């Protein structure tokens, strides 16, 4: 478990990134300049944080192989592997997911 002193290392789509301690995955991405990570199913629009509190599901992300996690709610941990769907366009619909 991280404390609020040490920076946290993680990867996003294979890139090595560092974030402040005690942040959510969504906050860690945004503070690294990544404002969008999910590609929408129909138009492939870039999606990032919107409601910020787990209501809208806009910010879905894959964390350590677990797909469709809300980036605004997942606490970042050291060594996490985070993947978006913006590049790959493989987002699932809620009916087919999980």
């Amino acid at each position: 478990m991280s404390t609020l002193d040490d920076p946290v290392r993680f990867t996003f789509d294979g890139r090595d990134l560092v974030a402040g301690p005690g942040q959510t995955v969504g906050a860690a991405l945004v503070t690294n300049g990544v404002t969008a990570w999910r590609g929408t199913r129909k138009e492939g629009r870039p999606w990032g944080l919107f409601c910020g509190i787990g209501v809208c599901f806009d910010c879905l992300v894959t964390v350590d192989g677990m797909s469709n996690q809300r980036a605004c709610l997942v606490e970042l941990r050291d060594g996490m592997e985070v993947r978006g769907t913006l590049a790959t366009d493989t987002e699932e619909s809620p009916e087919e997911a999980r």
Partner: protein
Amino acid sequence: MSGLTVDVAVVGTGPAGLAAAVAAAEAGAVVAVVDAGNQPGGQFWRHRPETGDADPDGRGHHDWKTFLDLRRRFRAGTASGRVHHLPGLQVWMASKNHDAGFTLRTTRTVVDGEGAAPTVHATRLVLCPGGYDRQLPVPGWELPGVMAAGGIQAFVKANGVLPGKRFVVAGTGPFLLPVAANIAEAGGEVLAVLESSSLSTWLPHWKAAASVPGKALEGAEYAGVFARHRIPYKTRSIVTAVEGEDRVRAVSWAKADADGRAVPGTGGRWEDVDVVGFGWGFTPQMELPLALGAATRVDADGSLVAVVDERQESSVPGLFLAGEVTGVGGAVLAVLEGRAAGTAAADPAAVVLPAKEAVRRDRHRRFAQAMHRAHPVPQAWQDWLTPETLVCRCEEVPVSAVTEARDALGAEDSRSLKSFARVGMGWCQGRVCGFAASCLGAGPGEPATRSSLASAAKRPLAVPVPISELAALDASTD
């Protein structure tokens, strides 16, 4: 742990839920508290992870002392074994048992492979699920960098950093003030707060406002922050478009007439904007009260809320509700309602609030009604839209598809708009677009009906749930 049987189950640990849990436990009940978050506080008292900062100082918070007092009593309850705290869980199905009591089926907020989430059986149930920012579609609101005003607030409170450098905050209601103030205090630049209402709309309600002096004090505090950071507060002003290709870059705004229509030739444009925060009041989280059959009404702010009696009991015996689901009214009111609900749920014969506190509760309710009337959703908001503006973000349904379904197919409520245009069919299940879709179905200038709001908020599964948990239902013996 797969099953837990208690006297009282409480859902939520915001101001209402925390007060309810403490009151029920102190009245002698064994209590289970289900919370989507990892630590008590809800949205209002959201703060940095206690794992790293066990004693946060409450900067940027209101009534922090109330929180610390409730948290201390809550912890006393967990220490004595009277309170079972179940953090990191969301209720995906609430049901009333045939004989008596309620069953809550839960799923993990964040899937981490830790096995099955517990089922809670309770004789009486207190739901305090709170609410979230109400949204109206605005051209360009789908761009990354556009956030709910409360989302910015949560970002700052939970992470201690800002999601950008230059901000515009827009919508209506007093909540825009603390959002802008917290951004500024955290070092961000707030280009303006755009408030669609005119502050003179408060004048008819001065009596209700004057009876709650704490609110005037809060207002004065924000005025100080705004002056110190030179934040322009523009009333009767709206965002007409958010612009950018891949993310927010610029914001256009205009002055609005009394109905909320943009006045041509007014306003301006800001460049190099990182984040736009929108909030048009709040939408209470109604799926659990609706799933249990609680009677509802439309409140002064146009939100669907549940009907409760003096003891916070809904039309369903044994089901108590407190906080925003009974009418959006803020944290002080939520604490009082939660305390009443928790006390009543633990002891049906108890006096739920001392007379003095009941008077305070009623004052805060009157203040909330005055606030709703002074900060309405602009009547002419549909005028802002272009045919391409998205209504349903999840399913990417534009305004043109919604109005076509309404005009050509007679889809005038959220349920038929769902069938004909897929509005509200996506991941959020209509949480974000339900209000706007109901208004669009009713037509320009028309209010959303109770039945349309209710069908937009009805969700067979309260949150998306792994198929394994659904499958486990067949095998369950409870």
